C-alpha cells in the first residue's frame, strides 16, 4: 500500500481502538446522536412519503374542478353550464359530479356520498369503502340504514366493499345511484355539486379557467396543480415546523457533544501527550480526532436512518402520525410506500452531522495542540 494511504489506515485503526477503549462514554454519545438522527429522519421520510402519496392520489384527479359561489359559499352548479363549458376550445370532457357529506350519528363519522353512473351498481344498492365497512362493522350483503333529509331511514344493501388497494381515496366513500343521492339529501334536479373538467393540454388550463370565469363570474375554477401546490406547502410547513421544534433537541445535543469533546479526561490528555512525544504531529492528532468523529457520526447516522426507515415504513410512523397526517374517525389505513432519495439523506446530514462536526472542531484542535510535557506532567 502507498505510504500516505497506509498512514490514514493506521490512524483510522488507532481511532477505532481508542474509541473502543472508552466504550461507555462513546456509547452514550452515539445513542443520543442516533436518537436525534432517528427523530429528524422519521420526520423527513414521513413528510416525503405523504407528499408522494398525495401526488399519486391526485394523479387520478380531474385537471380542474369548477364550483359555484353564492355569497362566498360553495353552492350547487346548474347543469346548463356543462354544455357551455364543453364548448370552450381545449376542453376535452366535462362531468357534472353529484356528491355530499353524510354525518352518521351512530359512530360519529362523516361519509362521502358520491353518485355513480356505473351500470354494475344494482338498484337500491351501494358500494362502500373499507373504512366505512370497518367502522359500521358491516360486510357485503348486509343492509345499512341512512337517515334522509326528512329524518326517515333509507335502507341500502351493500353490494360491494371497495378493494383495499384504493383505501387512501375510498376509505370513507359511499357510492350510490344519482337518484338515491338526490332522494337522500333532497338535492334539487338540474343541479350538480360541482363540475370536473379534463383538458387535452394542461398548459391551456389557465386560459380555460379564465374563460370559465368570464362566462360565469360566480364560478370558482380550482386547478389540480393548485391543489398539489397547496398539499406540498402544507406538508412542508408541518415538517418544517416540527424540525424547528426539534431544533431545541439538536441544540441540546450539540451542547452535549461540545461538552463531551471539551472535557478531555486526564487519561486522554496523557495519551495525546505520549503520542506527541513519540513523534506525532498536531496534524496527526487532528486527523485522529477527525476519524473518531467520522466513525461516531457515520455509526449514529446510519443507525438512526435505518431505525427511522423501519419506524416510518413498517410501523407507519406511529410516533408522529397524528401530528402530521391529521386526524379523523374514518381515517384510511395505509402503509406508506418506501421511498428514500439522496436529497432527503443530504438534508438529514446537514441538519444533524454538520452541527455535530462544527461543534467538535475547536475542542479537537485544543486536544491536538496540547504541549506533550504539560500533558504528561498533569
Amino acid at each position, binding site marked *: 500500500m502507498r505510504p500516505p494511504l497506509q498512514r490514514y489506515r493506521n490512524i483510522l485503526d488507532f481511532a477505532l481502538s481508542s474509541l473502543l477503549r472508552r466504550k461507555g462514554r462513546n456509547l452514550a454519545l452515539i445513542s443520543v446522536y442516533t436518537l436525534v438522527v432517528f427523530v429528524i429522519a422519521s420526520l423527513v421520510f414521513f413528510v416525503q412519503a405523504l407528499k408522494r402519496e398525495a401526488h399519486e392520489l391526485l394523479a387520478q384527479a380531474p385537471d380542474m374542478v369548477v364550483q359555484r359561489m353564492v355569497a362566498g359559499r360553495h353552492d350547487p352548479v346548474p347543469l346548463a353550464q356543462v354544455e357551455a363549458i364543453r364548448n370552450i376550445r381545449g376542453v376535452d370532457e366535462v362531468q357534472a359530479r353529484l356528491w355530499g357529506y353524510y354525518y352518521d350519528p351512530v359512530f360519529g363519522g362523516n361519509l362521502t356520498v358520491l353518485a355513480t353512473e356505473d351500470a354494475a351498481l344494482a338498484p337500491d344498492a351501494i358500494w362502500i369503502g373499507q373504512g366505512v365497512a370497518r367502522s359500521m362493522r358491516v360486510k357485503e350483503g348486509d343492509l345499512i340504514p341512512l337517515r334522509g333529509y326528512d329524518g326517515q331511514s333509507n335502507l341500502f344493501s351493500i353490494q360491494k366493499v371497495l378493494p383495499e388497494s384504493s383505501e387512501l381515496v375510498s376509505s370513507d366513500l359511499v357510492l350510490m345511484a344519482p337518484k338515491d343521492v338526490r332522494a337522500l339529501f333532497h338535492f334539487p334536479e338540474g343541479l350538480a355539486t360541482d363540475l370536473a373538467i379534463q383538458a387535452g393540454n394542461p398548459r391551456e388550463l389557465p386560459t380555460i379557467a379564465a374563460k370559465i370565469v368570464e362566462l360565469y363570474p360566480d364560478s370558482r375554477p380550482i386547478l389540480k396543480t393548485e391543489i398539489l401546490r397547496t398539499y406540498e406547502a402544507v406538508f*412542508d410547513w408541518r415538517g418544517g415546523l416540527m424540525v424547528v421544534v426539534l431544533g431545541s433537541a439538536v441544540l441540546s445535543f450539540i451542547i452535549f457533544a461540545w461538552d463531551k469533546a471539551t472535557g478531555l479526561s486526564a487519561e486522554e490528555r496523557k495519551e495525546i501527550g505520549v503520542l506527541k512525544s513519540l513523534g506525532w504531529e498536531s496534524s496527526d492528532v487532528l486527523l485522529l480526532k477527525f476519524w473518531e468523529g467520522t466513525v461516531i457520526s457515520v455509526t449514529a447516522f446510519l443507525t438512526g436512518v435505518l431505525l427511522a426507515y423501519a419506524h416510518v415504513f413498517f410501523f407507519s410512523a406511529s410516533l408522529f402520525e397524528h401530528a402530521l397526517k391529521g386526524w379523523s374517525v374514518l381515517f384510511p389505513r395505509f402503509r406508506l410506500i418506501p421511498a428514500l432519495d439522496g*436529497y432527503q439523506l443530504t438534508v438529514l446530514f*446537514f441538519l444533524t452531522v*454538520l452541527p455535530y462536526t462544527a461543534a467538535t*472542531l475547536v475542542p*479537537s484542535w485544543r486536544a491536538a495542540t496540547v504541549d506533550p510535557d504539560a500533558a504528561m506532567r498533569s
Partner: protein
Amino acid sequence: MIQHPGILALLVASGIVSLLLAAAGWQGFRILLGWDLHSGSEVQLDLERRTYLVSTLVANALLIQILSLFLFIFTAEGLHNQFVGAMCAAGSLAVNAYGYPTLLMKVATCLLAGVWLVLHRADTQGYDYPLIRPKYLLLLVLVPLVLTETWLQLSYLTGLKADVMTSCCGSLFGQGRQGFAAELAGLPPRLMQPVFGGTFAALLGAGFLLLRFRRGAGLFSALSLAFLLVAVASLISFFCLYIYELPTHHCPFCLLQREYGFVGYPLYATLLGGAIAGLGIGALTFFRDRESLTAVLPTLQARLAWTTLILAALFTFIVGVWMALSPLRL
C-alpha cells in the same frame, strides 16, 4: 418563507459556514498582526498552534460550502412546483432578485476557498511558513464574501412566497429573450462548438507546456478559468440539447435530475474541481521565488495541472459520450 426541511438545512449550513469562517478570519487577523517567525515568544508559539485551527476551520467550511452549493440547486429544484410558471430550478431561482446572485456567490466562494486550501497545502510543505501572509490576506477577502453569500441566501429564502408567477425555464432560457441567462442560450452552437474545442485544445497545449517545460503556469491557470466559463456556456448552448434530446431546452439545472441520470453532478463537479486546481496553480506562481518552496512547488503545480487536465478530459468525455449516444442531431 417556506418552512421546507431543505431550506432549514441550507440556513443551518450557511450559518455554520459563516461562523467557522468568521472565527477563522478573526484568528487569521491575529496571526497576520502578531506573526514573527524569528521570535520564540509564547505569543508566537500560540499563533503557530492557531494556524492548525484556521486550516481545520476553513477545510470544513469549504466542504460544507461545496455540499451546500448542490443542496441549494436541488432545493430550488424541489420547490419549483410551489411557484406558478416555474418548471425547474431556473424558475425557482428567478422568483426574487436574490436567487441567481446567491448561486453565483456560492460558486465564487467555493472557487476561492479551494484556492485557499491549495495555498495552505503549499504553505505546510515549506519549513518556514512561506505563505502565511498571502494566505491570511486571502482569508480576510474570503470571509466578507461568505458573509455576503449568507445574507443573499437568507434574503432569497425568506423572500420565497409560494404562488408568485415566475418565468419557467422554457421561457427564461428560451431563444429570442433578453437577459443574461437568455444570452447564453442565444450563443449559437455553430459558434460555441469550435470555441469549446479550441479552449480545450489550448488547455491541453498549455498543460503540455507546463508539465514538459515548466513554463506558462499563468497561462494555464487563465485557460482553466476560461475552460470553466466556456464549458458552462457550451453546456447551456448545445451540450444540454443532446442530453435533453430537445433542440429548444437550454436549462443548466435539469441536468441534475433523475431523468438525465444525474449527469449534472459529475459534470459540475469536474468543472469546479478542475477550475480550483487550475486557479491554484496560478496563485502558486506568484510565490515560486520563495526559497523554501522552490523544491516542492513544481511537483505540487504538476500534480494540480494533471488534476485540471484529467478533470477537463473527463468532462469532455462525458458530454462526448452523451452527444454520440443521443438520437438528437443538430
